[in-house]
């Protein structure tokens, strides 16, 4: 068989294999339609997390009481996690003006908060009648509740309700333009507001006596260069949430995705309740979270000088510099490995690199 016909055969095989999926496939909230959830358990068999999201080895979870676990094995619907450490949450803030204005007893002037929804269809069964609406689902109302609560506190809000449908993983690609559009407005932070797919008790929080709301889970993606800074940021946000409304933030999930957090380190994904919770509870929950955002970015309302729990941005800077060194090292090593493969020998590789360096310095004419 000639190479041409082999390629043609491969192509035909690919088309036959993929066409039905491309036309008829229908993703939903992962395990939701199989009626099962993934459970993350610790070494003693205690359940740490129940969710329809995919959980994979390497994923990490910071619990409400700040214990960090890492998934080491997945068997069916059970993810076994080992205890890593008790995390002391940082007190970082990231804007230079935070410190200057707090020093003179002023709240920082808010530039605004960006809100968007990658998964527009997400909805709440008890209130919306379904878990998914092909259009603006119940999650848009939760975004509006967050926007209204922030505006009540005098904070400008950029709530972008662009649709990124259909509701599948490609939505993360389509929402990049939305994130960039928000970044252009220079907000202080951006939140991608989602809801989880989980049993109702996973998110139920009694925030004050007799006041039940859904909790909020932060999600940070590990597959991007901002991960270390983003992690510090999410943890410091949780620290303030724990101080203002203990239990409101139920944990931080460190997953394998990117979630467009490569575009700015201050973009965090929020899971506000689950599809089994009522949207009213989610709207109440996100209203309390607005207080946390207000406090975190603009400081306490009474006396910023004495009441502020914040430190400097040291942790964030350290994380950023460590990442920077890693990026440059990977870039240089990758480049060298490529030249080496291309050249075939150390001597030839050195010769090529020397020639490239000379061209870069302008001491040799480019061919």
């Amino acid at each position, binding site marked *: 068989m000639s190479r041409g016909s082999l390629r043609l055969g491969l192509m035909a095989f690919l088309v036959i294999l993929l066409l039905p999926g491309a036309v008829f496939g229908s*993703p939903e909230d992962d395990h939701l339609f199989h009626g099962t959830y993934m459970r993350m358990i610790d070494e003693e068999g205690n359940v740490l997390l129940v969710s329809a999201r995919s959980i994979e080895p390497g994923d990490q979870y910071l619990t409400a009481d700040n214990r960090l676990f890492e998934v080491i094995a997945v068997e069916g619907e059970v993810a076994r996690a080992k205890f890593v450490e008790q995390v002391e949450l940082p007190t970082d803030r990231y804007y230079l003006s935070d410190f200057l204005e707090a020093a003179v007893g002023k709240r920082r002037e808010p530039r605004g908060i960006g809100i968007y929804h990658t998964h527009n269809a997400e909805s709440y069964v008890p209130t919306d009648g379904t878990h998914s609406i092909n259009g603006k689902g119940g999650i848009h109302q939760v975004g509006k509740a967050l926007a209204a609560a922030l505006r009540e506190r005098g904070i400008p809000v950029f709530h972008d309700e662009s649709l990124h449908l259909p509701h599948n993983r*490609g939505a993360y690609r389509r929402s*990049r333009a939305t994130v960039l559009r928000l970044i252009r407005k220079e907000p202080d932070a951006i939140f991608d507001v989602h809801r989880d797919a989980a049993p109702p008790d996973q998110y139920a929080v009694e925030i004050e006596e007799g006041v039940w709301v859904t909790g909020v889970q932060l999600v940070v993606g590990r597959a991007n260069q901002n991960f270390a800074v983003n992690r510090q940021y999410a943890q410091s946000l949780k620290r303030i949430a724990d101080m203002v409304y203990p239990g409101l933030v139920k944990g931080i999930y460190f997953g394998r995705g990117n979630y467009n957090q490569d575009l700015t380190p201050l973009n965090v994904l929020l899971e506000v309740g689950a599809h089994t919770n009522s949207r009213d509870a989610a709207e109440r929950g996100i209203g309390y979270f607005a207080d946390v955002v207000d406090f975190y970015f603009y400081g306490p309302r009474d006396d910023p000088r004495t009441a502020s729990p914040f430190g400097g941005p040291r942790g964030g800077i350290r994380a950023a510099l460590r990442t*920077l060194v890693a990026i440059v090292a990977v870039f240089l090593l990758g480049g060298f490995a490529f030249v080496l493969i291309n050249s075939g020998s150390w001597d030839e590789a050195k010769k090529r690199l020397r020639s490239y360096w000379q061209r870069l310095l302008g001491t040799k004419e480019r061919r």
Partner: protein
Amino acid sequence: MLRLAPGISLLVIVSALIFFGLAERVLDRMRLTDRSALILLLFMVGGYYLPEVPLPGGIRINVGGIVPIGVAIYLIATSDSSIEKARGIAATLGVMLLVLSTDRLLPVEPGFALWDLDPVYTAGLFAALLGYLLGRSRRLAFASAVGGLALADLIAVSGAGTGQDTRLVLGGAGLFDVLMISGIGAVIIAELVGEMRERIHREALLGDKEDDDVEREP
């Protein structure tokens, strides 16, 4: 971004510059000169600050987003032979099918298996494999990554059927759009795989001088 603490701003700036440098090197290999690659990239950066251009059907296009799509069309249109053109179109359709299928069949959140990368990165990987498989060509890898992905998103959005204004901004994230990430990723992977494969092939040829009819890689 410059309002952020210095270390963090530096991380953002250096990451962007490295990506810019990679983009320049990749475009440079796409039948473009150094200067035209640089001009196109600067056009992409500038396009980010311009309003999106509305097209029919709720689709918009970022002015800078025209660049990778234009380069992809240019690469296929200026292919050396009609076979090469057919391969380009086949690879583009293959990437489109792969993206549509994985979008539809895999879980909404990425990471259900070790190989399950974020959707921002997968199209580049598919295109590199297909581009190389079909034509052993880095240009084909770039063109099929960009073309296949743009087609997949156009089809997905037109089939969303929401009755509401679904907005797809082609190339909307400018230089950092998935179109560019995929094109660059595809070329880098194809280049690495290609170089390694060709090197192994060359060594095999040197080690077996008797075997005269072994085909050399283009």
